[in-house]
């Protein structure tokens, strides 16, 4: 009897790659060879048999109306060939295979973590998967596709991008790759029909910004909710802006709404509205379907205004306009991160603007705060090169305010905020770049007035970092395995000793663990010890042996071939050894896993 051990994970991985070019679906012969070698069957005959069954497996994929080849397709194809399918490789759709190379060999493998059974037992059961259900929606109404969440966005981000960057190349969805199948031979035919197209001048299509009645209503509702008084409604509206796929037609209106809104409300010092508008900007940026690049010229000035404006609220001494500045600064940083390119240079332009106003002597404390916040959010590099060198100067300025006698309350508050802002941002950066030890004197000479305070902050930051590192270490030690079903495969067999013979097909098909979690929390959790017993039982007639331990709160053990465990909680462990019916004579290896 021919037996195959098919490393199906490689196959599924190949199928993944295959999605790129659906036309040619093939396994490279090298990987076939590698597979054959890895399982110890070098014979060509089997290789070709497998290659043929792959051909058949594709049929199953096509008829299953899938794009991905699954292991069950291979099994079905082997069945067609009257070859016994493989047992035990019931994989999920996605197999996280890994790649390694060394010694001139390349290897794809499926990393199997060692699993602590008690972890699995203690994790609550996953929810029961939902049943198949049917849902109807309108894909098109008299030829027009309604923009509802069930339908895809009318234009994808890429299309919005090409539309704005290459207006001559606008392609309607789904019309790309026209005639991809036209054979290469057709190049020989005279392009008689194409001459006409070349002659005519291609005009940039007029972009339309007409909104349907529904969209107008939606726009009205959303903008009203965003700046209205009801917080629940606002949250809903912002959620809609952040997730709705069909907004791109309304984008110009939204950006104008925001920029105008900021302009008006900064003059009127309406802090609340400014915050609402910034939240809208955030929501727009969070929406993955929108291509915002076209509207940055309106959005960035609005955001920068909220960072550095002299006055944002009516009572600067009481209102927390600092939070708005922080928030806007973070938005700005996010903007720079996502949209800055070598051509638009957003980040460097922003940095220049902020630095310039910061260096200005006449800048007020509020604007000064905004500049620093804006710069600090841009990252440690910016802090290192732009802020740290200015710490001494800024420190003396703060000192003058704090210790001077004739200053307004507002200035004092401003100075305090700037001080804490600088401490907050600089400490972590200094902790990284400055070698220990941290002495107060050294800091005072380096950073002036702020030195001593910085020193204490840096020490705090260092201890915190050390703590975090420890925690990180610990988390890597405990490996949680969320999957309730795990397939134990051959990796464990190496421990059983003896050379591996090609006839090994014995792979336990599945190890199903069902863990009834104790209902009363007072019950002590079971000891985390685990025993994995591997036994090679002599060949018996029956190769199916099921050990079932079950002891939930109410039920008594069903079958027990294992001495009763010490813990009150006994998980239900089922070990099935799936072997072919033709294997009765061979000596099956069996693994008992006892907890």
């Amino acid at each position, binding site marked *: 009897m021919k037996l195959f051990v098919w490393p199906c994970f490689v196959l599924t991985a190949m199928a993944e790659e295959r999605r790129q070019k*659906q*036309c*040619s679906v*093939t396994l490279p012969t090298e990987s076939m060879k590698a597979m054959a070698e890895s399982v110890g069957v070098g014979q*060509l*005959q089997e290789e*070709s048999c497998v*290659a*043929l069954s792959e*051909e058949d497996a594709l*049929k*199953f994929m*096509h*008829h*299953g*109306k*899938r*794009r*991905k080849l699954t292991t*069950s397709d291979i099994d*079905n194809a082997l069945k*067609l060939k*009257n070859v016994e399918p493989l047992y035990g490789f019931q994989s999920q*759709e996605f197999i996280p295979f890994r790649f390694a190379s060394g010694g001139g060999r390349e290897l794809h493998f499926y990393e199997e973590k060692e699993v602590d059974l008690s972890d699995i037992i203690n994790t609550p059961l996953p929810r029961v*998967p*939902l*049943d*198949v*259900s*049917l*849902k*109807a*929606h*309108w*894909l*098109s*109404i*008299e*030829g027009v*596709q309604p923009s509802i969440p*069930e*339908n*895809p966005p009318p234009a994808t981000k890429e299309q919005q991008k090409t539309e704005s960057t290459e207006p001559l190349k606008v392609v*309607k*969805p*789904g*019309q*790309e*790759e*026209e*005639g*991809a*199948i036209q*054979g*290469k*031979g*057709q190049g*020989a*035919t005279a392009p008689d*029909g194409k001459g006409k197209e070349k002659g005519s001048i291609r005009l940039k299509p007029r972009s339309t910004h007409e909104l349907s009645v529904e969209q107008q209503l939606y726009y009205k509702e959303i903008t009203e909710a965003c700046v209205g008084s009801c917080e629940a409604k606002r949250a809903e509206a912002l959620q809609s802006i952040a997730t709705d796929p069909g907004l791109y037609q309304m984008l110009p209106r939204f950006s104008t709404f925001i920029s105008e809104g900021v302009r008006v409300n900064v003059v009127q010092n309406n802090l609340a509205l400014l915050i609402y508008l910034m939240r809208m900007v955030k929501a727009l940026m969070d929406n993955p379907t929108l291509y915002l690049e076209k509207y940055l010229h309106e959005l960035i000035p609005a955001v920068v205004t909220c960072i550095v404006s002299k006055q944002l609220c009516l009572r600067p001494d009481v209102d927390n306009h600092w939070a708005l500045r922080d928030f806007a600064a973070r938005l700005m940083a996010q903007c720079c991160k996502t949209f800055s390119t070598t051509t638009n240079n957003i980040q460097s332009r922003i940095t220049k603007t902020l630095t310039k106003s910061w260096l200005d002597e006449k800048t007020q404390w509020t604007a000064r705060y905004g500049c620093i916040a804006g710069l600090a959010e841009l990252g440690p590099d910016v802090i290192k090169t732009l802020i740290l060198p200015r710490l001494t100067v800024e420190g003396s300025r703060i000192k003058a305010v704090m210790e001077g006698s004739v200053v307004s309350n507002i200035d004092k508050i401003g100075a305090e905020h700037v001080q804490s802002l600088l401490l907050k941002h600089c400490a972590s950066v200094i902790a990284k770049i400055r070698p220990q030890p941290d002495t107060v004197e050294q800091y005072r000479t380096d950073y002036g007035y702020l030195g001593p305070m910085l020193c204490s902050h840096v020490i705090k930051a260092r201890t915190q970092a050390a703590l975090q590192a420890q925690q990180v270490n610990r988390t890597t030690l405990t490996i949680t395995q969320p999957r309730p079903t795990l397939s134990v495969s051959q990796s464990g067999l190496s421990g059983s000793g003896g050379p591996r013979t090609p006839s090994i097909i014995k792979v336990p098909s599945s190890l199903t663990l069902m863990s009834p979690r104790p209902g009363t929390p007072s019950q002590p959790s079971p000891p985390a010890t685990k025993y994995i017993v591997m036994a090679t039982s002599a060949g018996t007639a029956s190769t199916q042996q099921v050990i079932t331990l079950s002891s939930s709160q109410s039920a008594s053990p069903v079958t027990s071939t294992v001495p009763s465990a010490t813990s009150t909680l006994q998980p239900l462990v089922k070990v099935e050894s799936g072997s072919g019916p033709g294997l009765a004579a061979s000596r099956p290896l069996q693994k008992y896993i006892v907890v």
Partner: protein
Amino acid sequence: VKPGSAGSSKSAAGAPEDQQTLLAVLQFLRKNKLTESVEILRREAGLPEDALDTKGADCSAPSSGGTAGGVDGLDAGSLLSRVAVSSSAGTPAPTKVFLGCSAMGVHHLWILSAAVADDQPDVSVVLSAYSQQGDPALYKVYYSDLKKFIESVLDCHRAELSQVFYPLFVHMYLELVYNNHESEAKAFFEKFSGDQECYYEDDLRVLSSLTKKEHMRGNETLLDFRTSKFVLRISRDSYQLLKRHLQERQNNQIWNIIQEHLYIDIFDGMPRSKSQIDAMSGSLAGEAKREANKAKVYYGLLKEPEIEVPLDDEDEEAENEEGKPKKKKPKKDSMGSKSKKQDPNAPLQNRIPLPELKDSDKLDKIMYMKESTKRIRLGRENLPSICFYTFLNAYQGLTAVDFTDDSSLIAGGFADSTVRVWSVTPKKLRKVKSAADLNLIDKESDDVLERIMDEKTASESKILYGHSGPVYGISFSPDRNYLLSCSEDGTVRLWSLLTFTCLVGYKGHNYPVWDTQFSPYGYYFVSGGHDRVARLWATDHYQPLRIFAGHLADVTCTRFHPNSNYVVTGSSDRTIRLWDVLTGNCVRIFTGHKGPIHTLAFSPNGKFLASGATDGRVLLWDIGHGLMVSELKGHTDTVYALRFSRDGELLASGSMDNTVRLWDAAKAFDDLETDDFTAATGHIHLQDNSQELLLGTYMSKSTPVVHLHFTRRNLLLAAGSYAA
């Protein structure tokens, strides 16, 4: 398997000419160590004890059309199917409705079954043709010499002669492999495989895995190539040119291959252009021979039975204002007159026996007529609305979908072997009461049909369990009482939608069954599967009435013609075949697809056929003339669903690329120019007007479109499962 074969062989013993089959059965039984059955069967058939032993010698002589030659080489599946077929030959008449044609039909079945066997003859016999030796080193020279010649001929001939490359390449390669010139074969393959047309890529890949003589044994692809001659259509001038060249050069190697392995269909007239050839090529065994598409096809529709529409006017008048009834009168007349006139292209009403209409069918017809008066007229300016039914949480397991004609029920087949039925109207699904409860019902009451239903079982959906493998095809009966499903487990199952239980399991395919469909008149159904044949069944027979054999690879989809006299099948060999239900003959072969065909649809008037394949193209065919009419390019992935609107104006196509597209079918058919030449030769010049014909593209949200259906009022329903 055992009782079935024993039973059938018993009946086969009656027919004396079936001695061979009997021997085959005995051989099979013995091979499977069923000695008792062998004994019993032998005794009953009255065969001498040594019959089986001498059989080996008998068989080696290829006497009876190749059937006997391959007993050892045959696998159990095809052997059994042969037995099953021949046993129906033994019974006096398979069914009384077929009495008129039984003799002829049965005879034909026998021939067909022989053809099945012929597909897989003994490998060594097949391969021996390759044994002739040439100098292996010269193969490359021969081929490149020919290549040089063809590249140097006049443009008009070059395209035609280039067709020779692929089959020559394959046969030369196989010859090298067969004669154990492994390295030469490899070099040959590497040098020239890149020159072949891209649509042969899949076949070339299989070929590349054959590098040793031993590999050829039991290789289906190879057998296909050898047993079926590759068909080429070449004009006489081009052919003469080629012939002269080969004779001048004394290039016997190539000439032999052309003589033995290729079928060259020579026609008089202008050589075809490259685009014309490309449109028709791509199938596993070349183009169809011209004779294959010459038979007369009765594509017209059957006369509708005359049903009086009672109470109709009253209803309408009650609902509507005065204007309506006046308008309706002439309309109804026109409909009536249309159906009364006999279409010259229609088959005789009783060409194949059809089930009689029941009262419920008549009611349904009336409903249909009422609905069709409210039908929206679709067209270029008037696109339909599309309602999309998404299967949620199916986890990629949805494999087949069907709607009832009145769009009241949806059925889904799933990879987990289940079939689920949903009601999409407020009317819930109910089972019939148990036998005990049924006894209590007053059978004389008017609403007895209502009373037999068990209210307690009402639910929106029901699950049908029974298959043991993924369900690949599903079809409602026209009267909505039954549901068919076919599966990987090799069976077709008939389910009752009154009791929601399985009624029959039709066995015969033995391999995965890819598709099944009910006849538009009910009673008959067709199925096709991996065993390369399509079978016609009647619901009350557990054995097929017809076996349509001829495809060189899996039959991937099967459809009934609207007049129920024809069946069309699409296959992985990239051809479409139309079969006559009455005779079992293949009456049309359409080539042109470059990938396995996955869906087919007839136009409502029965004149045209649309087909979709993995290459993402939709092709339209004129059945009467046997011509390709149009090529609709646009989809970027496998087309899984096709449907014409109820009036045939539009064609909707659904694909794996998550789009539904609408095409102007009326325009595509109107533009058709069928002059005498094209009709005679089948060489149509296609315009590339896909973009003009495309009326709309509707993207779904990562939901491949698996099925499409036009309601009676021309609303388009689409279905697919959401792939997260």
